[in-house]
C-alpha cells in the first residue's frame, strides 16, 4: 500500500546462509511463504503465549519452537505457520517489534520450515547470538555462553561474594496512566523489574512446562542463579557485533 516508504523489492534484510538456492529463489520463497520466523524471544516463553499473541493476526496452523540442540530446551526463537499469506503478512507488519513476555520480538518472513531448522546453530547448542553476547540477559539464560564459561573458570580462582546485579533496564519507559487532570498515580515501573525476572526463573513450577527434559531446565536455572552474583559486563570478551564468523545465526543480524 504505502510504497513510498517501503522498498517493496527488498523483502528481508536477512539471508539464511543455509538456504539451498539463489538469492532470487530465496526472495521468491519469502514472498510466497506462509511461515514467519520469530526472534529475540525469552527462553521461558511458551507455545501457548505465542499462540495467544500470533493468533491475533490469523489462524495458526503450526508452531515450531527453536531448541538448544544439546539440552533440547527452547533457545529463544520459533517458526509459526499460518494458513494464509495475508495472515503471515499481518503478523510481520503488526507484531514485529512489539513486546512478548517483556521482550521486543522480531518477526520476519521465513522461507519455510524444514526438519532440522528447529535446532540452534551455535557451538554450545543455542543460537549463535547467545554464544558471544556479553550482556546479561536473564530471559535468555544470563550471559552469553562464552562469557559463562569464562566466568566459570574465574570462579575457581576468585570468590566474588554475594553482590546484587541491580535492576535489569526496562524494555520501555513505563507509561503513566494518571487521570489527565489529576497527575499520575506515582507508579514508577523500574523497581519491579529485577523481581519480575527472578520470578520468571521460577517458572519451572508451572504445570504447563513443555516436555523438554526436566534436568536441563534445572541445570539452566542453577547456572543462572550462580551468575546473578557476577559482574554485569566482562570487557574481556568481544561485543556481540563482531562475532558471526563461523557458524552463522539463523539469520544474519540486520546490517
Amino acid at each position, binding site marked *: 500500500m*504505502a510504497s513510498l516508504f517501503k522498498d517493496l523489492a527488498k523483502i528481508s534484510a536477512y539471508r539464511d546462509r543455509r538456504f539451498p538456492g539463489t538469492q532470487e529463489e530465496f526472495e521468491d520463497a519469502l514472498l510466497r511463504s506462509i511461515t514467519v520466523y520469530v526472534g529475540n524471544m525469552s527462553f521461558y516463553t511458551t507455545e501457548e503465549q505465542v499462540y495467544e499473541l500470533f493468533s491475533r493476526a490469523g489462524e495458526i496452523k503450526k508452531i515450531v519452537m527453536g531448541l538448544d540442540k544439546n539440552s533440547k530446551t527452547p533457545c529463544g526463537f520459533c517458526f509459526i505457520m499460518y494458513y494464509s499469506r495475508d495472515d503471515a503478512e499481518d503478523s510481520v*507488519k503488526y507484531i514485529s517489534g512489539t513486546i512478548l513476555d517483556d521482550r521486543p520480538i522480531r518477526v520476519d518472513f521465513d522461507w519455510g520450515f524444514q526438519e532440522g531448522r528447529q535446532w540452534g546453530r551455535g557451538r554450545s547448542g543455542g543460537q549463535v547470538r547467545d554464544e558471544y553476547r556479553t550482556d546479561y540477559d536473564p530471559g535468555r539464560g544470563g550471559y552469553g555462553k562464552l562469557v559463562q564459561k569464562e566466568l566459570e573458570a574465574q570462579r575457581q580462582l576468585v570468590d566474588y561474594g554475594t553482590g546484587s546485579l541491580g535492576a535489569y533496564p526496562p524494555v520501555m519507559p513505563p507509561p503513566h496512566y494518571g487521570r489527565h487532570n489529576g497527575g499520575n498515580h506515582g507508579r514508577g515501573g523500574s523497581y519491579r523489574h529485577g523481581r519480575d525476572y527472578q520470578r520468571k526463573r521460577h517458572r519451572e513450577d508451572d504445570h504447563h512446562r513443555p516436555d523438554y527434559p526436566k534436568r536441563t531446565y534445572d541445570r539452566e536455572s542453577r547456572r543462572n542463579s550462580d551468575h546473578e552474583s557476577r559482574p554485569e559486563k566482562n570487557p574481556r570478551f568481544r561485543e556481540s557485533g563482531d562475532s558471526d564468523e563461523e557458524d552463522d545465526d539463523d539469520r544474519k543480524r540486520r546490517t
Partner: protein
Amino acid sequence: MSSWRSLLLRLGEKCPEYAGNADFKDQIDACHSLVRREIEHSEDDVFPFLLQCAEQLPHKIPLYGTLIGLLNLENEEFVSKLVESTQINLQDALETGQCNKIRILMRFLTVLMCSKVIQPSALVVIFESLLSSAATTVDEEKGIPSWQARADFYITCILSCLPWGGAELVEQVPEEIERVMVGVEAYLSIRRRVSDAGVSAFEDIEETNNVVNEKDFLEDLWSRVQDLSNRGWKLDSVPRLHLSFEAQLVAGKSHDLSPVSCPEQPGPPGALSGIAFGRQKHEAELKYPQRIRRLNIFPSNKTEDLQPIDRFVVEEYLLDVLFFLNGCRKECAAYMVGLPVPFRYEYLMAETIFSQLLLLPQPPFRPIYYTLVIIDLCKALPGAFPAVIAGAVRALFDKITDLDMECRTRLILWFSHHLSNFQFIWPWEEWAYVLDLPKWAPQRVFVQEVLEREVRLSYWDKIKQSIENAPALEELLPPRGGPQFKYSAEDGTDPTERALSLELKDMVKGRKTAREMISWVEENVFPAHGFDITLGVVVQTLLDIGSKSFTHLITVLERYGQVIAKMCTDDDQQVKLIMEVSSYWQNSAQMTAIAIDRMMSYRLISNLAIVRWVFSPLNLDRFHVSDSPWEILRNAVSKTYNRISDLRKEISSLERSIVLAERAASRAGEELESAESKLSVIDGEPVLGENPVRIKRLKSYAEKAKEEEVSVRESLEAKEALLARAVDEIEALFLSLYKSFLTALAEPLHDASRDGTLRPSGHADDMTIDLEDSSVMELDKDDEQPKKSHPNGSGERKGYNLDEKQQWCLTTLGYLKAFTRQYASEIWQHIEKLDAEVLTEDTHPLVRKAIYCGLRRPLEE
C-alpha cells in the same frame, strides 16, 4: 534516495532534508528550485513520484498543490500531463469503486484549482456529475434507492473538498458553487436518513427509533460545511500555502479538465422491496462503507475545542494516515502526531483510533493494527498520550454496559495486549469495586476477561503481581491449576479405568499405530466398558499425553486422531467428546478452545456438535459471566467461514487460469491447423502439411494445451463441488445456530422482559422496547437528559441494577446480533430459509430485532 525525492517526500516536515527549517514557504521554494531542474532531465521519474506523494500523503496535498502551481509557471506541459493523468485516475477509481482514491483525487483537484492549475468551473463540472449520479440513484423511479450508500459517498466527496477550496470557489464561481450547494440540499431532502442501528458501538436502542432527531453522517457533515460557510470559509486545519505565492500563481495557465462520468446504475431502475432491497442495500454498504462512526467518549470539557469543520478535517487526516501508511510503523506514528494544524488534538486522535478499533461491522484493518498504532503513539508522545488513552479506557469502561458485545471483545483483546506492551501496569485499584458487583455485571466480566487474556499473554504469577494494588482482584484471575486428568495417580478414580489409561499410555510410548489402538479399543475396551468409559479413557489419556504444549497436542491428534474419529461419528458422540475436553482443560479456557479448534480442524468434531455443546445447559449458565463459550463458538463459525472463503478464492483463481488455458489451447490448435493446411513440397511432390517434424511438435503442443485445459476444468469442477458442500454446511450451521439462540432465549426472555423491557424502568440506559409496536418508543425524557450531557458518565458511576436473568438476556441478544452482523453477507444469501424456519410469527420481538439489526434490515418492511 536522491535528494529531490527526499525533498518531495519530506515537504512540510521539520527534518534534516530542510535543515530543520519548518517554514512551509521556505521549504516550497527550496523544493521547487530543485524539482524544476530535475524535471528537465528526469521527468519520467518526477512525474509518478509527485503523484504518489500527493495520493499517499494526502494531509500534505496543499503543499504539493502549491508546488505544482509554481511548476506550472514554467513547465505547462508537465503540469498539463499531471492534470490529465489525475483525471484518468479519478475516472478509473470511480469505475472500480476505490473510495479512498476518489476522495483523495478530488481533494487534489480542488487544491490544484486553488493554485490556478485548473479552472474552478471544471471542478464544479465534476461535482455536478457526482451530484446528478447521486440524485438519480435515490430516485424511486429512475434510480436504485438501495444503492444510496454510493450516492451518499459521492455527496460526501463533494462536501469533503470544500474545506480545501470552498473559499476560492465562492470567490471565483459563486453562482456555480451555489448551484451545487442547492443541489446537495435537494439531495438531502430526497434521500433516506441512514440509521446506525446494528452498527453503532453503543446500544442506543431508543435512539434508533428516535431517528427523526438524529443527524446521520452526511447530514452532520452538511451542517459542518454550512457552519464553515457561515464563517466565511475560514478554518484552521487546512494550510493555505497558495496564498503565500498568490502573486506568482495568478500568472499560471489554468488547464482544461475533462469531465468524468460516474458508473452506470448497478441494475435495472426501480424501488425494490423486502429481501431484494435489503440484499442490495447490504452489498452497496459493503462497497461504500461509512468511514467513521464517532464515539463521543470524552466529555466536552476534555476534548479539544475545535470548530466543527476542523474536527472533520483532522479526522480525515488521521484516517488517511492510518489507511495509507499501514505497514510503515515509524512514518505512520510520525505523521499522526505531526499533522499540519496549529492546535493540539490528542483527544481527537485517541477517539478517532478507538472509533476505528470499534468500527462495526469491521474496521478497515485488523484490530491488532490499531493496537500497534496506539503503542507507537504512546511512545511518540510519552508525556501526553498514555494519559489520554487511559482516559478513553475509563470512559469506555464506564459505558461498558451499553457497549456492543463485539466491541467489548475487541476492547478486551486490545487492552490486554496493550498492557502486555507496557509491563502490565494499570491502576487496578480504581476498579477493585467491581468485586462488589454481581458476577454478571459487565464491568466485572470485563476486568475478569482482561485478566484472563493477560495471563494467556504472560503467566499467572506475573499478572497476580501486576494487580498488587488491588490484591482482592485475584478472585477474578483464571484458575491457576493445570489440566484435570481423570486418571492421575493421586485421584481416587476407578482402578480399572486407570489401568486402561495406563495401558493406553504404554501403547503410545510403544509407538503403536492408530490401527492397533483402534482394534484394542474395539476388542478389549468398548465391549466390556461401554461407550462413555471408553471415550473417557481414550480422550483423557490422549489429551494428557498431548498436554505439554500446542505442538504436543497436534502431534498426538495427528497420530491418534483416527481413534477418536472412529468412536465419535455422530453429533451426540462428538458432544460427549467436547465434554471430555472441557473437563480435562477446565482450568484453562485457552487450552479448551485450542483443543476444540484443533479437533474441528482434523474433522473429529463438526461445527454442529460445537453449537450443540455451546448451547448445552452447563454453558448456558455462563453465557453472561464468561467469554469462554463464545470464544469457542466464534472459532467454530469463523473456521467454517474461512473454509468457504478459501474455496471461493481458489475457484476465482482457477477461473482465471481456465481463461488462460483456453486461450493457450486454441492458439496451439490454430497453429497446428494452419501448419497442416499448408502445402509443402516433399521429394518433388506437393504434400498437404508442413514439415512433419514441426507438425509433430505442434501436435504435441496442442495436445498438451488441451490436456492442461481439461485438468484445470476438472479441478475447478472438484472445487465447485466442495464449495456446494461448504455452502450447505454453512447454511446448516447458521440455521442450527439461530434455532439454538431462539430456544435458549425463549423462556428467559419471557420471564425477564416484564412490561416488555429488559432493563428496570426509569433507568437512564433503558433498552426499553415496546413489545406491541417496536417502532414506537416510550422514553422518559427527564431521565434521558443527564445521559446526554455527560456522554461518558466519567466520575459518576452508574448504579448497576440488572438482575441475573435480564443481564443474561441482554448478553445473549448482544452476541446474537454480533454473530449476525459479522456474517451478514453469508446470511443474506440464506435469508429465505431463515425467514421460513427461524423468524416465524411467534419469534420474540427482541430476538427479531437483534437479528434484523445485525443484518441492517429495516424492521418495518
